[in-house]
Structures are given as C-alpha cells and as structure tokens.
C-alpha cells in the first residue's frame, strides 16, 4: 500500500483497490461496501474491488470488514483502466 497519492488521485480519479476476504459474501453486501464490486472466486474467497476515494475511505472499509468478523486475506492497490471507468464491472 502506498501512502502517497497516486497520479490518478491527483487527476481526481480515485485509486482502485482489491480487498480479498475468506468466504463468499452475497452481492447484497455491495451497498454495505460502498459500491465495490463483489466477486466470488472459486477458491472460496471474495474479492471486493473498485475505486476507493482516499486513505480514510479505505480504512473505513477495512473497519466494516473487521466489524463483520470477516477474515481479511489481502489489500492491494490495483492499477487498471477501471480507475477511469469505475462502473464498467459494477
């Protein structure tokens, strides 16, 4: 994770993150996680992905993961064209 604002952020495109959790979450959690895309992977993990406004928003998301008692596997910044078009996969 980088603390420095990426060049995307400077251009008002919030950076994308991938948050991987153990277990499968329903798509009904999409709103709970601020509109991140919920992808259920075959290995039994859930991938939350999408734009996250800033570091404070990221910590807020992690707090929600914590409050559900969901085992957190990884958090990665994700460089892709999604940054400019966050709604494509939503």
């Amino acid at each position, binding site marked *: 994770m980088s603390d420095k604002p990426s060049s995307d952020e400077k251009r008002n495109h919030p950076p994308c993150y991938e948050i991987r959790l153990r277990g*499968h979450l329903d798509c009904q959690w999409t709103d709970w996680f601020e509109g991140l895309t919920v992808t259920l992977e075959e290995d039994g993990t859930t991938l939350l992905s999408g734009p996250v406004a800033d570091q404070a928003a990221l910590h807020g998301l992690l707090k929600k993961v914590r*409050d559900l*008692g969901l085992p957190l596997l990884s958090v990665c910044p994700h460089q892709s064209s999604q940054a400019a078009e966050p709604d494509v996969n939503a």
Partner: protein
Amino acid sequence: MSEPLLLTKLYVPLPRPKIVLRPRLIGRLNEGVHCKLTLISAPAGFGKTTLVSEWIASYGRPVAWLSLDERDNDPTRFITYLVKALQTIQAGIGEGLLVVLQSPQPLQIETILTTLLNEISNIPENFLLVLDDYHSIDSQPVDQSLAFLIEHQPPQMHLLIATREDPGLPLARMRARGQCIELRATDLRFSPAEAAEFLNRVMGLNLSAEDIAALETRTEGWVAGLQLAAISMQGHKDAAGFIQSFTGSHRFVMDYLLEEVLHQQSESIQTFLLQTSILDRMCGPLCDAILLDSSVSGQSTLEYLERINLFIIPLDNERRWYRYHHLFRDLLLNRLLNAYSGQVEELHRQASCWFASQNFPEEAIAHALAARDYDRAAVFVEQAAQQLDMKNCLVAITRWIEAIPDQVVEAHPWLCIYRAWGYQWMGRRDSVELWLNAAEASLPFALTLGKSDNERDHLLGHMAAIRAHAAITGENIPRALEEGQKALSLLPERDEMRCETAVAIGGAYWSLGRVIDSEQAFASARAAALTCNHLTMAVPSTCYVGMQQVKQGRLATAHQTYQEALHLAVGPDGWETPVAGFPNIKLGDLYREWNELERAEKLLLRGVQQCILLGQSDVLVDGYLCLTRFQMAVGNLDGANENLRQADLVVAKTKVDPFLQTRLEDCRLRLWAREDDYYSITRWMETSGLSVESPFSYYYDLHHVNLARALVSLGANTRSQALLNQAVSLLDRLHDAADRAGWVHEKIQILILRTLAEKALGREDATPGVLLQALALAEPGGYVRIFVDEGEAMRLLIEKQSHNRDHPLRGYAHKLLAAFTQPGAGPKSATPALHQVQRGASVIHYKSDIIEPLSNRELEVLKLLRSDLSGPEIALQLSVSINTFRTHTKNIFIKLGVNDRRAAIRRAEERNII
C-alpha cells in the same frame, strides 16, 4: 451533563444462565489482575463480553463497566462516562470533575486525569475497570488519555479492555515490562471439546463427534458462528443434512446462518428483527412505536428473542433496555437496507419521535438526522436548547446544529442565534456575524409562522447581546454599548442573556475609563444572574464588581464583595464549586497587597487549582499572575518565573482579556528588574510597540504604565536623565488619564513610579508632595505591597517621610517600614505546595472553611499517630510499607493544613475528628 446519562452504558452484563465454562481462560484472567492491563483483542463474535461477564461474576471485587460507542471519541464524553462508571463503585468520586467537564472552554485533560487518578487512589479496595468495545474509539486524544491513566494507574485498579482491534497504546512496551496479559482470537476460539459441550450440552443438540468436528472446522471455532448454527439446527428436522450443506458451502458463515435462522422465525418476528436493527438500543415501547403493528408486542418479542438466545443482550436488570449483538445487528441492518430501503427513513423518523417524547434529545436528534428529516431535527435542537442549561451545553448544541444543512438552519432564527453564540464562545469570531445575519434574514419568514411580537423582541434581544460581546472582542466600544442597550430594552425580565449583556456593557465602560458606570453595570449583571438563579454567572459578575472597587482603591469594600462571590460559589452541600477559584484568587491577591502572606498563599493555591478545573483561561491567567506577585513578595524568584511561564502557556493557546495582557507584562518587567536583567527590559521596550507618543488606552488598562516602569528601571540603572525625564512626563499624563477614569489604584502606582523617577534624577526633595499624595490615596485601602515591592529605594523615601513627627500619615509610614524589614516573610512551604498546584496533584474539593474529610484508612493512621508508636512501627501494625504510611501521613497533613505529627493531632482533636 449536556444530555441525560445513558445508564445502559454502565451496565455490568450478567452471565448467561447456560454457557460453556472456560476454566482455562478464567484462570488466565485471574492471573492477569496482578498486572496493570488485561487486553482481550479478537474479532467480532468471539465471545469477549460473555467471557468477561462470566469471569467477574466470580471475581468478588467491585467492577466498574463502561461500554464505549463512537460518540465517546469526544474526550470530554469519554471522561464523563469514565467518572460515571467509577461512581458506580465509589459514590461521589470525581463529582467536581463532572462540573468542569461541562465547561465550554478547552479542557486541560491531563490535569483532569491527574485529579481523577488521585481520587481513584483513595478507593479503599482493589477493583476492576472494564472498557468494552474499545474499537469504537478512533481518537488520539482518547487513546492518549487512556495511556496516561495506565501510566499512572493506582495499584488498586486493574484495567480490562475488550476490543476488536488492538488499541492505540504502547503495547509492546507494556508486554516487555510484563504489565499486561492478552487473550486473543486463538485463545477465545472454541476448542473441539468446547464446541462439543456447547452444541450438545448448552444448546441441547445431540450431534455426533464427526458432525461437531465438521462444524468446528467450518466455523474455525468462531463462537458466534457456532451459536447461530446451533440455533438453526434447533429448528431443523434434519440436522445432518443441514451440517452437510452448511459445511459444503463457501458462503460467509453468518450470511448463510442468518438466512437459516430467519426462515425459522415467523414473518412478524423477521420483520421485527429487521426493522429494529436501526436502533442502538431498544425497549418494548420503542419497538412498538417504530413497528406500528399492534399485533406484535415489543416487550414480549424482546423477551422471546432473549429466551431463544438470538444475539440479544439485556442492558439492565429490569428487562427494559436491550441491544443486539453488534455483529448480528450489522447483518440485519444490511438485509433491511437491501430488502426494504424505502422504509428506513420512516423507521428513523418514528424512533426520533419516540426518543423526543421520552426526553432523550441526543438520540431524538440523531435519528431525525438519519431520517434526513432536518426540519424535525431543527425543532428538537431548539427544544433541547430551551430545556438544557444553555451555557453549559453550548458546545453540544452547536455541534447538533452543525449537523443540520445550512439552508434548514437558516430558516430557524433561534438555531442561527445559538450557533452564533456558540462560535462567539469558542472564539470562532469570523462566523459570529455570519450567523447573526442569517438569523436576521430568517426573521420575517419565521414571524409569518405565527411567532408573536414578544418572540421577535426576544430574538432581536439575543442578537443584540451577542453583537455587544462580539463588538467588545473587536474593540468597537461604542457599538458594544449601543447593542448592549438595545439588548436590555428588548430582552424579557428573566432571561440569562440580560446578565451576559450587562457584563458586556460593564466591559465597555471599563474600556472607556468610566469606573463608576462599569461597577454599576457589573452589579446589574450580578442582579440579573441572581434573578435567574444562575450562580455560575453571578459569581464572576460579582468578582467584576470587586475589581472595579479595587480600581477605586476601595480594598475593604472589594474584600466584602469577593467574600460575597465566594459565598455564592459554595454549593448546597457546603463544598466550593470550581467557580470559587475566581473569588479565591481575588481574595488571595488582596491579602497579598495587605501583606498577609500566609492567608494569601492558602487562597491563591486553592484558587488556582479551582481555576485549572474551571478551564476558563482568563481567570486562570489571572491566578498565575497573582501567584507570580506572591512569589516575588516572599522572595521566591524561581517560583515567580515558573508561574509566569504557566501564564504564558495559557496565553499562547487562547486570547485573553486585554487587561490581563497588560498585567502579564507588568509582572514580567517587575521580575526582570528584580533579577537586574536590564537587557531584557531594553529588548521589551524595543518590541512592545508602545511609545510615549502613542495614545493611551483604557481598553488595555493603561498599558503605558508598563512603559513608564521600563523607563524608570532603565533610567535609574543607567543614570540616564533622558529616559527618566521621558518617564516623568509620561507619568504626568498617565496620572491625568487615571484621574479622569477615577482609577485610584493606578494613580497610586503612577505616583510611586514618579517618586522613584524623581529620586533617580536626584530631585526627590523638589517634589515631596508626590509620595505624600500616593500615601494619602493608599492609606484608606491599607495598601502595603504596592510600596514594599519597589524595594530599598522606596524604603529610604518612606523613611525620610516618617521623620516628620507631625505628619498625619506617620503611623501608616511606620507600618510600611515594618513591612519592608521582613522581606520574604512568607511561609517556607511555598515552593512544594506550588509544585502540587502545577501538577494538579492535590484534591480539588474544598469544604468551605472546613477541612477535607479523611478517608477511613487515614483516620486509622491518624489514631495511631496519636500513640507513641514510631513511623515504622505504625506501618508494621497496618501491614503497609513505610512509603505507603508516609503517603497517608502526607495526605493527612495536607488535609489538616499542618506540617507535623503533633499539630495534626491537635487540629484533629480541635475538630473532633478523633
């Protein structure tokens, strides 16, 4: 309190009737009490609270419990509830602090905590303090407060923190020092044996070892998961089939199980669960109010949910208040938002109405905001502000208003006014006029809604009063008077704002050098405060009256006035409230002037302690400056410097009244002169921005007197005729200015400086009348230190006067000469006692003229002190260390106001304590 106390936050949860006993963990918790902290850090649903409640049921010592929530990120609220939790095991502890915590002024948190720690150390037995849900805290000030508490934790206290994430404390250091034990997820997780006991014995299932192992693996021993699984299976005919499909699924355990559980409940229970999930806490009538379904009884549904163990937690012993397990509530809430998002605002609206009808303003407002029903929120804030003690709750009210969109606030003139008043108090002065204008703009509309002319005058009166205060801070005195008079003509008879207005007017007359008008204005402020029975306002108003009397040289009258203020500051229980700090420092300063240094010291130390707690920076700075002058009088220059530094620290943080800035400079110049630090005086002159040509200012309390003092000091030291001549001509003009204002006190000071300047010029015989004039003005008030503080030069001058046998002031001159010859006549204890003040270390309560009550332990020690036993022998008899014994005796001596064993016994016998 700015709001009714939520007692449910302090409720010690009872252990459930049927639980898995966990002797391994209980054993570790029992061991843990030998260190400072037990940390239970594990994710949601690991049974933290259940474990702690099981443990403390057999712990056998007092337990103070505090369940934290997000609002406790405000350190004031956090400490308030901390004190309230401690009061559940020790009545009255920290009561004085609760008063202080309401103050709208910035808090000195460390001081408050130190005081609290001192009071904790008087709790006679070992106890446990539990902070549950500490993960709700996301605030550095609160983390720091807690770290400070732990750092200085008295030995009888043990702290237990339960949290979902490690707290912001120096844990690594505490681990290294063996100061904490921890229970974490791996410890709390159900072992296969515990899972078996839970599922089969507690939940009454009859599962095979294989099934149990499968469930244990699927949930990884997660207690909440196992519990929800067990509840699902209780209603399932085919437990084996359930286990097979559950363990075969990757789905999030709770999602999967919640669906199972909900499906087993009737439709009305499902609706109940979902709809009540918007509530932080709930009771039967509240549930009825938001469900609007007469076929369902809230109370019996809550009891049913408790019976089937459905993640519902009682918050009291009466089966009144409940909450859901936080994790369970989040799951329900998510479902509600997905399935019935259209209903959510309506549910919040109903909850808001119910809380308002039960007089829980904070929750009523919070739910109205969640419902986005801002008009309702606005009405509730307005009602709350009228019910609550406005000034004590100004900060809370301002925050509520800030949560409402501006365009809604702008339609409610009272909200605009409260907001403006809040900002004036908080020193956000740019925003004051903005919101007063908004209030004005909203008036025509508000008045079409049937508000009467009286209401209109009331609103306009408040606006004028706030403008008067803002004008004073903006140094626009004519405007302050104009707005103040306008306010008085508009405000109703019994309105607190009349007092605030009169204070502003008094300040305005002060700034105009009209001492009689100023005294009268402050007296009418006091009268207005008494009419509203508002003592916390009556006390400072009365002190201001006294300060104007001092300016007129009427020290005896001022003494009476300050006594009266002190009397007002004593609560109905006979204890001095912190607002007594103001009259105490003023009385102390009078005694210092009269050279009654022992009395002065006692009152100043007590007053400054109270001022620290009061948290009002102006009064606190005044207190430190009075102590500075006192320390100089007793010849303790280090102590004087230290107090001056403390005053500087406060001034650096906030803006204080202009007259105090002037007094601060006066003290500084006096100290430099005492230390022969002429370099600093020269630098001060260069940077003060004052010149002999610049216009005098009553607003700054004639701060040119400071310039005159600097000129006289430097001129006398360097024998510079030029400087001294400048001083003389400046002092002449200052004398006229003080004379016009009726400021006798300043006149005496000016004449004294003038005499010193003439002496340095070698012209003392040319103007003997100047000193005589000073003596004549000072004699009725009994001034002493104003002469004595000027040192040897002044002594020689007065001595010369005293040779004149026929002079009417000869007796007074002799009295002064006697005072010169006992420099540093003050008590020797000054320094250590002062040290305590600065650390806020001693006890804050003072019984008016009666000594601080002794604890039972101290009484025991006192009785043994009366015997012939030596210190070590007494310690042995009490089974305490010699250091503990010494601490007790020290505390006893402080409380009795004595310095040794014999005096302590004598005082105690006099007071019938033993």
